[in-house]
Every structure is written in C-alpha cells, then in structure tokens.
C-alpha cells in the first residue's frame, strides 16, 4: 500500500531539505520512493508543494485529492489550501506561522481566521505547533523544516536513530548539531 506525504509551504521556506530527508530515510528502509518537486517561477514566494510517496511499488510521482496520509505544512494558510488532498482520516502537521500572501499585503483579501479550528471541524486530525519559535530555540529560524520532520516522526514506527542518521546524511556536518536539536524539539514538544 502506497503512503503519501505532502509537504506544502511558501517558496523559500526549505521544503526541499524536508523531502530530501524523507526520500533518503524511506529508500534506506527498502521502500520504492518517488519525490516530486516544483522548480522555477512558482518558487518565488509562491505556494509550493512537494509530494513524497513510498511503498512496495510506486507509480505516479504526484499525490491527488483525497490521497494524502499526511500534509506537512510550513504555514497555516497553505495547510488549509491543500486540505482537499488529505485522506478522510489523514493528519495535518502544521507550523502555526502566518505569512501574508501578496493579495493580503495589498489589501485585496483577508487572511482567514481560526484556520486550525476550521481544519479540525472539517474532519482532519491536526497537530499544530509554533515551529518557528522551536527552530529559533534550536539556533536558526531556517530549521523549521527539521522541526516539522521531528513532529512527523512521531507518527512513524521507526526508531529515532534512523531519522537522526538520515539528518547526518542530508545536512552539512557543521549544521548537524543544530538540526538534531531542532528535530528533537519538534518530536518532543507538547
């Protein structure tokens, strides 16, 4: 059975490292893996999506509506934007950070209120936390991606050492300590 993880956020938030880490980990666990990314113009501060799929044999590189077991979101509005990709009993792991998109900045639209409550009401299991503060606590606001991976790891039946090994293989050695701290903060915070 193929499992689907969607990583969503705003261009520039570091979702490519998160998908690299997952791809690395899942391949070493013996799964067939596909990771699909978007490059080019849509990266420039736009809404970005990465698909990670794994299982015995994976065909499509993309995740479609109603298929995601997990949506890992770097930003609250982006979690809501992709809700319809979530499976009926799927889980959203979301950073509660709000980043205003240009239509909100220019006043053409409002940033929706109470999104976490609305996501729960729509039937999603939601695990929401302030990953930016945890990343800063770990030593860099850029570590939001690894904080989120730490949180996601709670829902996987894999020993923590395997995640840590994957981090060591995916980040430069000088950032390893920081990222391990970010990972554990994400995994263990209330």
């Amino acid at each position, binding site marked *: 059975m193929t499992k689907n993880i969607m990583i969503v956020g705003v261009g520039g938030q570091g979702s490519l490292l998160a998908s690299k880490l997952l791809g690395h980990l899942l*391949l070493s666990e013996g799964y067939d893996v596909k990771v699909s990314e978007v*490059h080019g113009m849509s990266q420039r501060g736009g809404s970005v999506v990465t698909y990670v799929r794994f299982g015995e044999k994976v065909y499509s590189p993309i995740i479609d509506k109603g298929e995601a077991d997990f949506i890992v979101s770097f930003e609250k509005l982006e979690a809501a934007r992709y809700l319809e990709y979530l499976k009926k009993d799927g889980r959203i792991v979301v950073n509660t950070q709000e980043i205003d*998109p240009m239509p909100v*900045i220019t006043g053409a639209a409002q940033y929706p209120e109470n999104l976490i409550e609305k996501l729960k009401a729509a039937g999603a299991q939601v695990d929401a936390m302030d990953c930016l503060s945890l990343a800063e606590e770990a030593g860099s606001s850029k570590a939001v991606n690894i904080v989120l991976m730490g949180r996601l790891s709670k829902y996987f039946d894999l020993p923590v050492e395997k995640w840590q090994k994957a981090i060591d293989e995916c980040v430069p050695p000088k950032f390893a300590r920081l990222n391990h701290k970010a990972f554990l903060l994400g995994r263990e915070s209330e």
Partner: protein
Amino acid sequence: MKQLMLGNQALARGLYEAGCSVVSSYPGTPSTEVTEEAAKYDEIYCEWAPNEKVAMEVAFGASLAGKRSFCGMKHVGLNVAADPLFTCAYTGVNGGMVICVADDPGMHSSQNEQDSRHYAIASKVPMLEPADSAEACEFAKKAFDLSEEFDTPVIIKMCTRVAHSQSVVETSPRVEIPAKPYEKNIAKYVMMPGNAIRRHPFVEERTRKLITYAENCDFNRVEMGDTKLGIITCSTSYQYAKEVFGDKASILKLGMVNPLPEKLILDFASKVEKLVIIEELDPVIENHCKQLGLVVTGKDVLPIEGEFSQNLIAEKLGVEVPASCSLDETMPGRPPVMCAGCPHRGLFFTLKQNKCNVLGDIGCYTLGAVAPLNAMDMTLCMGASISSIHGFNKALGQESEGKTVAVIGDSTFMHSGMTGLANIAYNQSNSTVIILDNSITGMTGHQQNPTTGYNIKGDPAGKIDLEALCRAMGFERVRVIDPYNLAECDKVLKEELAVEAPSVIISRRPCALLKYVKHEAPVKVCEGNCIGCKSCMRLGCPAISMKNGKAVIDTTLCVGCGVCKQLCKFDALQ
C-alpha cells in the same frame, strides 16, 4: 548502487555512463538540472551557451568531430534551435548526438504549452520519452547507440513530472567511447541544394528503417492485464494509468514516440476490447492510431490542456476517485512575487510611476506584471521586448516614443536581445531599451551567462561588457543606473524617454539571492512616526505588511535594500 535521482539528474548520469564528451545548453525550466548535473562530472566538457541554437550547433560540431555530444533545452528553446535541428536531421552525425527537450504541461514555469513531439515528426528525428528517472538514465545511454546506428540526432523528451521527480536509479560505471575519426565529407555535411537533395531520400529511408525498429525495440513494451480495456500511453501518463488501473487493463507503453510503430499497435489493438489513448497535450498517438484505422477513445474525453493526474484519468474514464475533506472558505491566492530586495522592484516602481508602456521579456522580472506594480504590457518570448518596441514605435511614432520602454534581463539579452538591438541601431527607431542586469540568469536558479565573467563550473571566464557592446552597435546614449536609487532611476528614465535618439539604460544590481551579495540590516519601523499611509506598500515587497494600521517588516525576509525608506515621507522606516 541504488539512489534517488531527479529525472534530470538521471539523464545526466546516462550521458556520463554513455561516454558523452561535450555538453552545451541554455538553461530553461524544467530542463536546467540535466546540464548542471552533467557539469559535476569532470569527464564531460560542459558549458552554458548564449542560446539554444548556439548550444545545438556546438553539440553538432562536437559530433562532427567524432565525439558523443549533448544539448538540453526547454520546449520553447527548441523553437530557437529548430533551424540547426531540421538540417542536422539531413546531415546525420559522426559521434552520437542527443538533444533533450523538456516540455512543461500545466505551464508551471512557461509561456505556452507546446507539444515537442511535433518537432520530432516535422524534423524526422527519432524521439524517446522516459517515464521515470531509471528510464531517463537508460534511454540517454541507448539514445547514443541509436544515434550512431541510424546516423541521426536523437531527441529525448522530458516533461516537468519526469524531469523534476526523484525515483530510484541503479547506476553503472562510465564507458569511454573512442572518438570516431573525422573525415571530410562534403556530400554529407555541406547542405547546399545539390547535396541536400541527395540527403533527403536518406532521411526518408532512415524513417522507414526506424519504424521497423520501433516494432520490436525495447523502448516499447506491452504489459498484458485484463483485455476488456487496452491503453496506449507514454511518459508520466503511463504512471497515472498504472496507478488507476493496475493490471485491470492491458497497457502498451511507448518509450519511442517518433516514429511510432504500426504492427505493434495493430497487434495490441486486436487483443483488447476497447482502446484508450492516454497522452498529455496533443493527440499525437491518437491521430496515428486513427490513421491506422483504429477506433479509439482519447481527446474526446481527456483534455488537451494542462497536466494529467491519477484522479483526472480516473474521473474521465469512469473510475471512482477517493473522497476528501473540504473547507467552506475562500483562500487568498499566493502567486509568486519578486523577492524582498529584488533589484527589479525599484525599476518597475519607477516605470509604474511614469505610466510607461512596458514591453517585457522572459525572466523573473516578468513578475513586474503582477499586482500591485502591474508594470508590464506584453511578454511574448525571449528577446521580443526589444524587437517589439521597435515595431511599436514605428507604428505609433511620437505617440509612444516618449513613454514606452523595453525591459530585458542580462541573460535574455545575450540569448536573443542583441539582434533586436541591432535592428534598432540599423533601422533607427527612437526606442528606450532597459537591460535589467542582475548579473545572473535568475529565474532558472542562478546560471552564469556571457556577462557574468564565470563559466558553468564557477571558474573565471570571458566577460562581455554590456556598455561597450551597445556603444559598438551604434548607441550613443548608454546610461547605467542603480535600481535601489529611486530618484536616479526616475531622472534617467525621464531624460532618455525625452531625448530623440535610441538609448539603452542598464539597470545594474546583482540578484539579492546571490550568495556573495552582502545584505544590510533589516529595516526598522518607527511606530511613532508611521501613520499607516501605506505608501511603502505600493512596492509589493513581501517583507512589508500592515498590522493594526502600522507597517510591519518581516525581518526574516528583509535584506535592508532601503527602497521602501525612499517612499516614506514620515521617516517611519529606518
């Protein structure tokens, strides 16, 4: 060794393993990483060419010399390189020559959605189409053998979902291929009419042989399942079809999409009750099947526009799709925007303030067209800004000359802006051309170009001096401005629009995302001074927003470019 690789990275691996020696490309999403990855292998000479036509001719030259060569481009790049393509189809090759073209169904990062298979048909060149990274690697290797066996360039067609998806690849070592001897052969390589007339029958005969080859080659394969439904498909559509139907359908997967087999298709069709063609963009396989007299379902239910997905195919072919959650809420869109500190922002703000007609071009700066700047009137293709402003001003004369500009990036200018500029210099229109020199090819992810002074490996290289070039072309008025300085931008723009002579303004400031660019401290808001006039918001900078009637700076985004400070009349931004 098993590795996860992007399709583009796997294709580059295939080039390496096949003993490819020379690679010349122009970057373009979604093709760029093929050449970037190839450049990591020291055994391959790699370069960024000024444009795709040059790149293909470089690859042809290397093939003529006897080495295996490659050039890569996006779909619209093949339009630029079509001229050498159609005739090297006649000359054939010496060393194997492989061309990669990457289509962008869904237009994630493109100005149109053309289907490159038409080029393979029109130029009579074989085209292979991998469906994942493993095939990208394998097809790249086999493409060189095919090229040398049939004396033809071979095109490998990628699409966004194959190019930019990672899947598992098994790598093998490089095989060094000895260079074929170069021998002068006027009849084969000098394509003047008398020789080309003799080469055309060779091309037709080659196509007949390739059709026979396609009937049995291992690029095409049949996967028999339930015979109630037969599917003929290619590329990423194969993956979606497998996802939806598994073995509940029989599948003919075509890895060689030009020329298409005949017997293989007729034989497959005879074994299934209903035949469906699943292909993105145009009905190429479908029309071929119809010509063979087959009754098929295809574009009567599946769209020509956009990308496919498993749900789209399921829905259109009557298979149930999974249920999903939904929110009854209007979500504000999040379109791509110019980055905080983007040097283009100040220039576009100035153009908006001066109510200019802006004839645009292809690059990050096309984002000058989006709200709140809305400072662009036209974007067509690489280089069109400069050629079009000449036509626009010739048509309208004084009515447009004083308020119309062309804007083009440094890399796009090198690609195909120079010829347009030569036309202005030669046929003399009173046009104002602005070269947005951010010292890099920005949109495709920071590739070097002939104006940056560095090559694809980041080593020092030749550097074209834009001012000297424009002057040499006959432009007496060449001005250089800093787009972070709004007053200077406004002054120079007004002067050059007013003067009755063609002129070039070079708006120079490196891309804020370049690693070597040193950033200033983020701008601070002095809340006591901010009256919430929103003057700073007119820039459309993603680092500035309004909270409770006051400007707020996102310090994780702000690079301290200071353009917003120049708009604040109340000294609230410091």
